[in-house]
C-alpha cells in the first residue's frame, strides 16, 4: 500500500520535470555604468583632493573601455558616507554601481585616512568598503589601489592599474629607446638608448629586471637590465646570435634562441650558473619561445613544416606537438595566464591579426580588425591584449578586451612604438 502511495506521489511529481526553462546564453553589449562621486573632505584638507582622487579612480576604471561613467554634473547628490546615500538617486540615472568616499586628516604632517565604499544600485547593497592610510604625495598610488579593489569586486578579475608596460620607441631612423611606463602611459622612463635596434623586452616575474635584445655590438645579444640600479649585463651565451629571451615563471632561467652557424634553435639558459641546455634541434628555424604558466611547456614558432606554425615542447620529455594548422602563418605564440588558451599573430592573405585558440579546440578566432598587428602581450588578469600595429608608417599600440566589447589605442608617442610587454602583477 505504501509503495502504491509512493508511486502516486512520483507520478504526480513528474510534472516537476516539465517546468518551462528558458536558456539565456547571450549577455548584453552594454557596459556597466559607474558613478564616481567626488570624495568628501574633512575641513582643513585641500579641497582639490576629493575631486582628484575620484577622478583618478574614474580614469583608471575607464582606461580600457570596460565601463561607462556618469558625469559629475548629472549627479543628483554627492554623498560621502552611507548615511547620505540614497539608492533611488542613482537608480533613476541608470547607474549600476556608485563609488563614494571620504578623506580624513590623521595629523598635520599631511597623512590622510581615505575611506571608500562601492554600492550595487540594482541589488541595493553595499558590496565593498575599505580604508587606506597614505600621504598627500601619493594620492595617485592610493587611487590605483582603490581602483584595483573596485575593479576586482565588480569583475571578479585582478585589478591591473598598478602594472607597467615595457616597449621600444623608434623616434627616428637611428634612435631606439627601451622604455617602461605605467599602464596608463604616465611616468615614462627611458632605460636604454641606442643607435642600433632593440627588440623583445620581457619582464622578470618579480618585476625588477627586464631582458631584451640589443644589436649595439653588431650582433643580436641579450641584455638583462636591473630597473632599480639601471645596471645592464650581456648574458653572453654561446653561439653566433642570441635572441627572443623570456623569463621562466620562477625567474631562474630564460628560454631563448641561440643560433649556431645560422640555424636558430630554442635553448634554456640558467641565470645563476650560466648553463645552456638545448631544447630543439632541427634544421628549420625555431624561434619566439614562451613559457606555459606552469613552466612545464614552451610554445615556439617553427617553419619545419614549410610555413611558420606554433609548436609546444615539454621541457622535461622534450616531446613536441603542433598547435596550429589554419593558414600558412601563425607565429609569436603566448599562453593565457590560465594556460588553457594561446594567442598569436595569424597571417591571412597579407593581413596579420591577433588570434586566439583554446588548446582543447581546433578552431582559431581572430580578435583584431587592423591588418599589420604584431607582438601581442596580455594583461596579467588575462582580460586585455595590447599589440603593436601600424597606421601608415607610424607604429602605435592598440588594445582590445577579450570579450571584444572594447577597443582602444594607447596615447601616441613621439615616434613609432613597438614590442609591448605587459609587466606581471606586484607580488
Amino acid at each position, binding site marked *: 500500500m505504501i509503495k502504491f502511495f509512493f508511486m502516486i506521489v512520483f507520478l504526480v511529481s*513528474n510534472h516537476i520535470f*516539465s517546468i518551462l526553462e*528558458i*536558456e539565456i*546564453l*547571450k549577455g548584453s553589449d552594454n557596459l556597466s555604468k559607474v558613478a564616481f562621486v567626488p570624495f568628501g573632505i574633512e575641513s582643513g584638507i585641500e579641497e582639490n583632493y576629493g575631486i582628484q582622487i575620484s577622478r583618478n579612480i574614474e580614469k583608471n576604471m575607464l582606461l580600457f573601455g570596460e565601463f561607462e561613467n556618469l558625469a559629475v554634473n548629472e549627479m543628483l547628490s554627492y554623498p560621502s558616507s552611507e548615511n547620505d546615500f540614497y539608492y533611488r538617486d542613482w537608480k533613476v540615472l541608470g547607474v549600476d554601481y556608485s563609488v563614494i568616499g571620504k578623506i580624513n586628516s590623521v595629523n598635520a604632517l599631511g597623512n590622510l585616512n581615505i575611506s571608500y565604499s562601492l554600492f550595487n544600485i540594482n541589488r541595493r547593497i553595499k558590496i565593498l568598503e575599505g580604508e587606506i592610510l597614505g600621504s598627500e604625495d601619493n594620492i595617485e598610488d592610493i587611487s590605483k589601489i582603490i581602483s584595483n579593489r573596485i575593479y576586482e569586486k565588480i569583475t571578479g578579475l585582478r585589478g591591473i592599474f598598478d602594472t607597467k608596460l615595457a616597449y621600444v620607441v623608434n623616434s627616428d631612423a637611428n634612435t631606439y629607446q627601451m622604455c617602461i611606463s605605467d599602464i596608463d602611459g604616465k611616468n615614462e622612463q627611458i632605460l636604454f638608448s641606442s643607435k642600433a635596434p632593440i627588440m623583445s623586452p620581457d619582464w622578470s616575474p618579480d618585476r625588477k629586471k627586464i631582458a631584451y635584445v640589443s644589436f649595439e655590438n653588431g650582433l643580436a645579444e641579450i641584455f638583462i637590465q636591473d630597473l632599480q640600479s639601471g645596471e645592464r649585463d650581456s648574458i653572453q651565451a654561446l653561439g653566433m646570435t642570441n635572441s627572443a629571451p623570456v623569463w621562466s615563471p620562477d625567474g631562474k632561467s630564460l628560454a631563448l634562441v641561440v643560433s649556431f652557424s645560422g640555424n636558430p634553435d630554442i635553448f634554456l639558459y640558467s641565470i645563476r650558473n650560466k648553463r645552456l641546455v638545448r631544447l630543439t634541434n632541427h634544421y628549420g628555424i625555431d624561434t619566439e619561445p614562451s613559457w606555459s604558466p606552469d613552466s612545464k611547456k614552451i610554445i615556439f614558432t617553427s617553419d619545419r613544416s614549410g610555413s611558420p606554425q606554433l609548436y609546444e615542447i615539454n621541457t622535461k620529455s622534450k616531446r613536441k606537438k603542433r598547435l596550429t594548422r589554419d593558414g600558412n602563418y601563425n607565429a609569436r605564440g603566448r599562453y593565457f595566464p590560465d594556460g588553457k588558451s594561446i594567442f598569436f599573430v595569424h597571417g591571412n592573405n597579407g593581413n596579420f591579426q591577433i588570434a586566439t585558440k583554446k588548446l582543447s579546440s581546433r578552431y582559431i578566432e581572430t*580578435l583584431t580588425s587592423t591588418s599589420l598587428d604584431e607582438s601581442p602581450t596580455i594583461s596579467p588578469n588575462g582580460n586585455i591584449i595590447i599589440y603593436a600595429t601600424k597606421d601608415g608608417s607610424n607604429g602605435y599600440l592598440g588594445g582590445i578586451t577579450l*570579450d571584444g566589447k572594447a577597443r582602444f589605442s594607447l596615447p601616441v608617442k613621439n615616434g613609432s612604438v613597438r614590442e609591448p610587454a605587459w609587466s606581471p602583477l606586484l607580488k
Partner: protein
Amino acid sequence: MNKALTSLNTFFLILLFLSLIFSMFSIPKLNIDETQSIKVNFYELIQEDDILFDSSILNTTIKKETKKASVNDKKAEPSEAEILSKFKINKSDIKNEISKIKLSKEREDILRVSAIIQASISSIWIKPNSLSESLIAKVSINLAPSGEILNFDLIEPSSNNSFNESILTAMNKMTFLEEVSFLDRKLFEENFRNFNLVFKSSGEIE
C-alpha cells in the same frame, strides 16, 4: 496471494522507475536559432512528419498497385474509390486537426513569449568578462498574471561568484515581464506562473 501481491508491487516499482526515466528524457528541445534555444515540454510537438508519412504510404501503395497492374492485367485496376477513401475526411479527423491547430497556436504563444523574455533578459544581463570555464546557473521565477516578478531565487548557483552576482544584478533590474499579461490565463498558469531561467556561459571568447 502474498506472492501475487509482491510481484504486483515489483511491477509497480518498475513502472514507477520507468515513468521517472521517461519523464526526464521526454523533454523536447526547440531551437529558436543557432545560439538560442528554449525548452518547452508541455505539449507533444505537432507531428508534421505524420502527414509526410501518410502521403508516403499512399505513394507506395499506388506504386505497388500499378506494378501489380502491369504484371497482371487480369487484376482490376486499383479502384480510384480506394485511393479516394484515403483522402476522405472524417469528423474525428477534423476534431483532431482543430486540436492540433490549437496546440500549435499555444505552442507558438509559449515560444513567442519565451523568446521575448529571453531577449529582454539578455539585453540587461552584463556578463562578466573573460570567463574561461563553462558555467550554468538556474534562477526560478514567480510571476503575477500582470507580468510582475513576485520573486526570484538563484536555485542552482554556479561555482563562479561574479557570474552569480551578474545574474542577481540583472534579475534585480527586471521588475516586469509584461508580455505574459497578454497570454491566455490557462496558458499563463501552466507555463509562466513559475518557470526557470538557465544562464549559461560557454567559456569561449565571444
